[in-house]
């Protein structure tokens, strides 16, 4: 018996583990049907087929994916481009594929979310071509028992129809953390590992243990391994279900679990959940796209509604974060070549101090109306002088909890001075990563540099916490980093004492923190900072936390 490869490694896409037989699948095998008459006929047939599948979809996310494909298959410009290529001599089958790739390439060039839709457009092109050639789309395997589906990649139309009673695990050779396969596997609760090269050849027909938490697939695992992974998963599930209330480490160090929200509706919805307050209330929605400043009364009413919804719980308001890429027409900001480095955040107060003054007054009025005291912070603070000026302005307005966001490396490096006159700091890891790694958040091509596990970013968080420690100022994190349970442990180890995230991320972070003593958090912070790159930081911490 061979003992060469017993474990394949990929990217953990959907948590949980499952032990079952793997079935390899190649969607290229198709049945012959009557070919479509022309491109319009093919479009009508593919639309009908996808609508039929949408009706049978196993989750709302699946139905939504299929509805998007329906729109692509009926797109008038896509069909017109294909027809014009037929006029210049391409076969209809080749023309629909090449027209779809033209649009797919455009989307790839835009990066990020749009680039991830490119395979969907190609999938539609392939479906149109199949219809013209008289090939019916391949169906998922039905081996008569629950199985782990192993494929090169899954088209969205395939994943949308998965029955979680039958397909109990997924392994794909391609795909990424935000691809459809991942999103749908998570929504259906199916453990999944993606970006796992060589999976089909290695796994087909074998008993496998899919560890979607670690991103590993074990081939023909022995009973001990299966039992240990299963008991680990069961414990995690139990602790997650049991953990409620205020966040804390295993030894009782409080870590406030807060949420990021951007509208009154979101705030009211979040108030009904088991969270300790709002760590970041973005006020932009009141201002964005407005040609006139919102009236003081409208502002007071909005802020008061948020404070009322949260009662005694903490609410942190961020003052207007505008810039030439987040245009607020009445501010009269000039066009800039480089909006991320321009007049944005607190910097807009240099030309329009009156707007900031009115906003601060609205916070103070809302406070006295509701009898609760909001925390108020300014975005994009770079120097001690800016922080001092903001603090004295806010205090002069009658606000008592005044803070700044740390999202510019200079503020993190000189935290002791920058924080000398404020009451708290909140680290915006998304912007801090953008500035520390010199990588535009809007460019898909540089996205890997913005990984919240970048050791350089963790160094800046550490520097902020050290700077704040002299006066024992509370430091929080309100970026994407706070929502990753393992990274949350690292942040607490670095000295962070509040984490603000999307409401749905709170339970997992709470459960993971509750299992880690502060000493373990500190150790996790050390190993993460000692790593050379985000991936090894992640693995080292995963190893440590078991």
């Amino acid at each position, binding site marked *: 018996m061979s003992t060469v490869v017993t474990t394949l490694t990929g990217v953990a896409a959907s948590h949980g583990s499952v032990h079952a037989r793997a079935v390899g699948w190649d969607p290229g095998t198709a049945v012959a049907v009557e070919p479509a008459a022309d491109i319009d006929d093919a479009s009508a047939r593919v639309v009908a087929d996808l609508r039929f599948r949408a009706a049978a979809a196993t989750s709302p996310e699946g139905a939504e994916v299929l509805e998007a494909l329906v*729109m692509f298959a009926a797109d*008038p*410009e896509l069909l017109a481009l294909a027809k014009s290529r037929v006029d210049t001599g391409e076969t209809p089958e080749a023309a629909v594929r090449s027209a779809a790739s033209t649009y797919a390439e455009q989307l790839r060039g835009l990066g990020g979310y749009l680039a991830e839709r490119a395979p969907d457009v190609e999938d539609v092109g392939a479906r149109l071509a199949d219809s013209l050639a008289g090939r019916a789309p391949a169906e998922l395997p039905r081996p008569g028992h629950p199985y782990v589906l192993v494929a090169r990649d899954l088209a969205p139309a395939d994943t949308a129809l998965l029955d979680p009673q039958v397909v109990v695990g997924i392994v794909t050779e391609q795909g990424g953390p935000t691809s459809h396969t991942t999103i749908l596997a998570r929504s259906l609760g199916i453990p999944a590992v993606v970006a796992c090269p060589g999976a089909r050849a290695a796994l087909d027909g074998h008993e496998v243990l899919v560890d979607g938490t670690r991103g590993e697939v074990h081939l023909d695992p022995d009973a001990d391994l299966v039992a240990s992974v299963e008991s680990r998963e069961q414990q995690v599930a139990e602790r997650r279900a049991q953990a409620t209330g205020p966040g804390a480490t295993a030894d009782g160090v409080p870590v406030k679990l807060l949420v990021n929200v951007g509208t009154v509706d979101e705030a009211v919805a979040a108030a009904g959940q088991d969270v300790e307050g709002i760590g970041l209330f973005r006020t932009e929605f009141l201002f964005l796209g407005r040609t006139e400043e919102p009236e003081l009364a409208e502002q007071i009413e909005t802020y008061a509604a948020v404070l009322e919804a949260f009662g005694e719980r903490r609410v942190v308001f961020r003052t207007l974060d505008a810039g030439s890429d987040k245009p607020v027409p009445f501010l009269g900001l000039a066009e800039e070549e480089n909006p991320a480095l321009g007049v944005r955040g607190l910097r807009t107060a240099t030309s329009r101090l009156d707007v900031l003054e009115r906003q601060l007054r609205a916070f103070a009025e809302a406070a006295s109306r509701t009898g609760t005291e909001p925390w108020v912070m300014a975005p994009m603070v770079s120097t001690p002088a800016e922080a001092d000026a903001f603090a004295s302005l806010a205090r002069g307005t009658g606000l008592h909890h005044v803070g700044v966001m740390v999202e510019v490396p200079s503020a993190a490096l000189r935290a002791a001075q920058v924080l000398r006159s404020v009451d708290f700091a909140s680290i915006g890891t998304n912007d801090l990563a953008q500035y520390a790694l010199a990588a535009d958040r809007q460019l898909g091509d540089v996205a890997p540099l913005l990984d919240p596990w970048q050791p350089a970013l963790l160094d800046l968080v550490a520097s902020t916490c050290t700077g704040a420690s002299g006066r024992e100022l509370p430091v929080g994190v309100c970026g994407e980093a706070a929502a990753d349970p393992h990274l949350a442990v690292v942040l607490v180890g670095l000295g962070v004492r509040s984490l603000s995230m999307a409401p749905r991320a709170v339970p997992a972070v709470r459960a993971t923190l509750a299992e880690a003593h502060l000493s373990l958090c500190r150790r996790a912070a050390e190993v993460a900072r000692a790593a050379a790159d985000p991936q090894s930081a992640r693995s080292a911490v995963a190893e440590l936390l078991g």
Partner: protein
Amino acid sequence: MPTRTAVIASSVGLHARPAGLFVGIAGEAVRSGVTVTIGRPGEEHVNAASILSVLSLGARQGDVVELSAEGENADAVLARLVDELSVDRDAKAS
């Protein structure tokens, strides 16, 4: 030809569901005889009833876009589309 500008309100930009809803309305307009185009101010416009063309604009939250319509009731169609762009359809997805 009537033209209006709008600011993209959706936090995801003019992508995903917000784009689908927008293109759906533009498609309805085409069936009632009104053609609509969309583009960045001063740049070439694309067919507003084509989801792929609209996505390819890569319009993000806060971006300004220009809409033009031709046909009967063009003004009413434009007003409806501008309203659609001014709501954050993705607010709940945080």
